Structure formats: C-alpha cells, structure tokens
C-alpha cells in the first residue's frame, strides 16, 4: 500500500480569531515497506499529520492518495481503509474503553467481522507482542493498569487488526527500557516478516537511529527536511535548528571531530562508532 500526500494543508479554527495553520503545503510519498520516522518539536504538526493518513482528519486543502485513490473521495469506504491503516494515538488512556483488556484489544478484530476463535488468537498474539502477560492482564480493567501497561494494551489493540500500514504516535513514551526495546524489535520484525509499512512519530532520536529508513522533519507545519537518518543527523545544525537532538553517538562523533579526530562525519549508530573508537585507540597505542 502506498501513501501519497499532496499539498496537504490543515487549518484549525478556520474563520475564527484562533485560526492556526497546523500543516502548510506538505507533500511526500511513502512506498510499501518503508519505515518512516516523523520528527519535530511539540506543536509542530506531527499528530495532525498522522491523523490525516487514516482519514480521521480531513485536509483543508490537498489530498491523501492511498494506492492512487483519494482517501477523502466520494466512493471510498473509509471504514474499510481504516482497518488496513492502523493508528496508535499519542495518549493511550483515551483510547481504552472496554471493561477488560482482552475485550479492548478484541474491539478492532470484532469490527472486522472475524470469527471468535480468530479474534481470540489475535488478542493473545498481540498481547504477546507487547509483552503483556495474558493470564495476568486479559481480564483486568484497562483502568487498573499502570501508564506503561495501558500504552502496551493500546498498541496491542491496533496490532490485532493486522494492518498493512501501521502509524504510531509516540509509541514508546512511558515504556520502561525493556518494554521500549521489545516494541522496537517487534516493529523491526513486523516490517521484515510482513512488509508492514510503518510510520512512527517519536521524540527519541535514538529510536529513529535504530529503525527509520527515512526521516521527515516537520517544523511549524512545514516539511523542513526529508532524507535518510544518516544524511540528516550529520547535516550540521539541522536538527538543533528545529529544536531537536541528534543521537548521542552522532553527538560524540561531532565533539571528537571538532577536537580534530579523524572520524567520518556521518556516524550515528553506537556500533559504527565503537569500531572507529577501537581503530583510533589501536592507532594511538601503535606509536
């Protein structure tokens, strides 16, 4: 499934004094199987953008084409489309509403009209993917979960629909480090195994360094940059000019280069840096 965003503009409060242009003429295309990271400071328009991609918000102007078809066109079955494009919202506590965790996760698959045993299979599988113990939590009320457990349940609810495109708005906020690592690994596997297209909004440049094949940088409603993490993290001053960080490995690389060390400018993954630091050390000890 390809997603083409054409000249998307979205204005909140049109015609009132509080009118704000949240998105301003944004265009890009996502090919099947890509892992696109969407970054930008708070209020830059990321959440508004992703809510357009599954039809929750309608453009003020511009279009979203799904496999060439206008998402907001007359004849489109948006409900069916929404099941193929799963969206995990930013605040999961507002997304949970059933009496038990299992029922909550089953909500999507049930709407898809799947048979009971398939629904059950999917609920168990999704809970396993997010590492929420079925025996312990399936029958619990979602409101008796901790913050991180709620987020896991919300992600499971979308995974259970087995969407072709998965959009996640800050999925790892509030997760403990192991939970964060597991969710990221799960996304990596989903992409490798099912070729799921993934779009992820995150403030964690470390997560982006690990997963994204491409980054979209949003700043004040505009697409400020679109490129590979390697390219964007090494472009001096780009990320800081839009209020963002670069991964710690890239920062260490920049600090050392500024001191005169011979390192490539575009290192941003810890494992790459490790190799180069070992090389520097061996060179230094050799003489």
């Amino acid at each position: 499934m390809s997603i083409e965003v054409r000249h998307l503009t979205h204005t909140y409060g049109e015609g009132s004094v509080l009118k704000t242009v949240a998105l301003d003429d944004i265009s890009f295309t996502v090919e099947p199987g890509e892992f696109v990271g969407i970054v930008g400071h708070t209020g830059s328009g990321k959440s508004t953008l992703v809510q357009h991609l599954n039809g929750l918000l309608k453009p003020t102007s511009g279009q979203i084409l799904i496999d060439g078809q206008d998402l907001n066109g007359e004849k489109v079955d948006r409900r069916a489309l929404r099941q193929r494009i799963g969206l995990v919202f930013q605040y999961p506590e507002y997304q949970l509403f059933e009496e038990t965790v299992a029922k909550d996760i089953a909500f999507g698959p049930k709407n898809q009209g799947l048979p009971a045993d398939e629904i059950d299979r999917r609920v168990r599988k999704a809970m396993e993917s997010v590492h929420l113990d079925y025996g312990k939590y399936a029958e619990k009320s979602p409101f008796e979960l901790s913050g991180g457990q709620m987020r896991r349940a919300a992600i499971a609810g979308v995974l259970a629909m087995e969407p072709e495109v998965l959009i996640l708005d800050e999925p790892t906020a509030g997760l403990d480090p192991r939970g964060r690592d597991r969710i990221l690994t799960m996304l990596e596997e989903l992409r490798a195994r099912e070729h799921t297209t993934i779009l992820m909004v995150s403030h964690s440049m470390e997560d982006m360094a690990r997963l994204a094949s491409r980054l979209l940088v949003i700043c004040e409603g505009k697409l400020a940059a679109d490129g590979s993490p390697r390219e964007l993290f090494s472009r001096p001053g780009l990320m800081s000019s839009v209020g963002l960080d670069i991964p710690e490995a890239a920062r260490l690389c920049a600090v050392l280069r500024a001191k005169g060390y011979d390192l490539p400018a575009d290192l941003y993954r810890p494992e790459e840096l490790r190799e180069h630091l070992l090389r520097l050390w061996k060179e230094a000890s050799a003489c």
Partner: protein
Amino acid sequence: MNTQVRIQANNVSFTYEDAPSPALSQVEFEVREGEFIAVLGHNGSGKSTLAKLLNALYLPTEGRILVCGFDTGKEENIWEVRRRAGMIFQNPDNQIVATVVKEDVAFGLENLGVPTEEMYPRVESALSAVQMNRYADSAPHLLSGGQKQRVAVAGILAMEPSVIIADEATAMLDPSGRREVLETVRSLNRNKGITVVWITHFMEEAAQADRILVVSDGKIVVSGTPREVFEDIDRIRDLHLDVPRMTALAAELRKEGMPLREGILTVEEMAEEVERLCPLKSAT
C-alpha cells in the same frame, strides 16, 4: 548540607482494592532535605503508586509515611502534606485548569485561602523562577508542552513546597522541552534547596540525580548513586532498565580491551576519556 529528613517511609505496603497482590510491599526509605532522588522501575513496578502515597492521594495499607514530619495517614494532615509535597504528572494538558497562565498558577493558592494581595506576588515570583513570567497573561493552550509543564511547576512553587514529586514529567515532551523542564527543577533544587523525587524512564535523566532508587515488583531493590547503580549493567537490565548509552558503549569498548575508566555516564565524559587514551599528535 542540612540533614533534615523530608520524606520517611517505614515499612510501607499498599494494595489496591480487590487486587490479588500488593502494588507496594514493605517499602523503606528516607529522603533528606535538598536531595534530588530519581526513581526507576519497570512498568507496573509501583512508582506512580508510591508518588500518590507521598502526596496523600492514597494511604498506606500498612506502615507509615512522614512528609516533613507529617504523617500522611492522619486526616488532619492531608493539606499540610499536599502543600509541602507538590506533584507534577506526565500529561501537560491535564494539569492546566485555568484559561490564563497566572490564574492557573494562583489556583492552588485560592484553594488554600491565601488573600489576594499576597497571592499575586507569589504567583509572579513562582513564574519568574521557572522563567515563564513573560507568559503570565497568555492562554495556556498556546504554550508548548515544556512550557505547560513549567507552568505546572510554578503552580506548585507558589505553594512554597519543600518537596516536588514529578511522575514522568518529561515523558511526553520533545528533547528541548525535556531539557527545559529538568533544568528548571534542578535549578530549584540547587538554588532553593527544594527536595526532588523524580520518577523517570530516561536513564540519562536519572544519571543527573544525587541518588537513584530502583523499584521492582513493588519493592525497592537497589539504592545508590548513579555511578554505583549503573555499574552493574547485567543487573540493571535484569530489572528491565538500562544504563545510559555512553555507559553501555564504554562497557563494550572495555570488553575489546580499551582501558576506559569506570563510571562514564555522558558524551562529555566519554570524549575526555578518548582524548586521554588516544592523544592527538600535536598539529604541525
């Protein structure tokens, strides 16, 4: 440093109604005046439950908590406890109640019945302490997440608290918002001696604390300085946590034979060690 005890938890257990097992059991610790304590722990370990106990939102099922000497379990102490131990939460949008920033900051004071003429100087000084005085007359919904969190901090400050309890106050913020909120609270800690209990999932934030408490399955299992706590990487990972990235990188390099010193937490410390071990040949 003054050694007055600000928080004392004696053998505290807490069980949610109808829950099969306690969310916290036999928790025992002390926080001294002016300390900055980070609390780490896996999802569901009991951190938020602990925060709510410190703020008298919940009462211990067993044991006792003293906040600035006030027993949270005594009905008549509730307001004393809440005034002295102010709390900030994760979601910036849920904490703002008024439509103008300064009124939001004044909200807690109104509840306490502070007279109007005393209120505004306090609100003003609280807003300047978090560097938000320029926004006193703004509408909160136009602020960034980091700015909203600083307004929430000001709301607590106006009450002249001894302790600030932050339950993942930076979780929903972008990197600069996170830095701005942590810096604000750290400077209140340093300059005003306010004691801080900082719950977080960011190891780099915990690395800046004086001391770390690690909660696991409702118990405090580790307590120590960041260097001590992050030294045993396998143990920390077993607790579903991690070490700061530079600490992990240093450990891997050490495994390859590079003799980096122990206790590296930050990029700057790592850069210094690289300079020490791989001195640049002086430029010609």
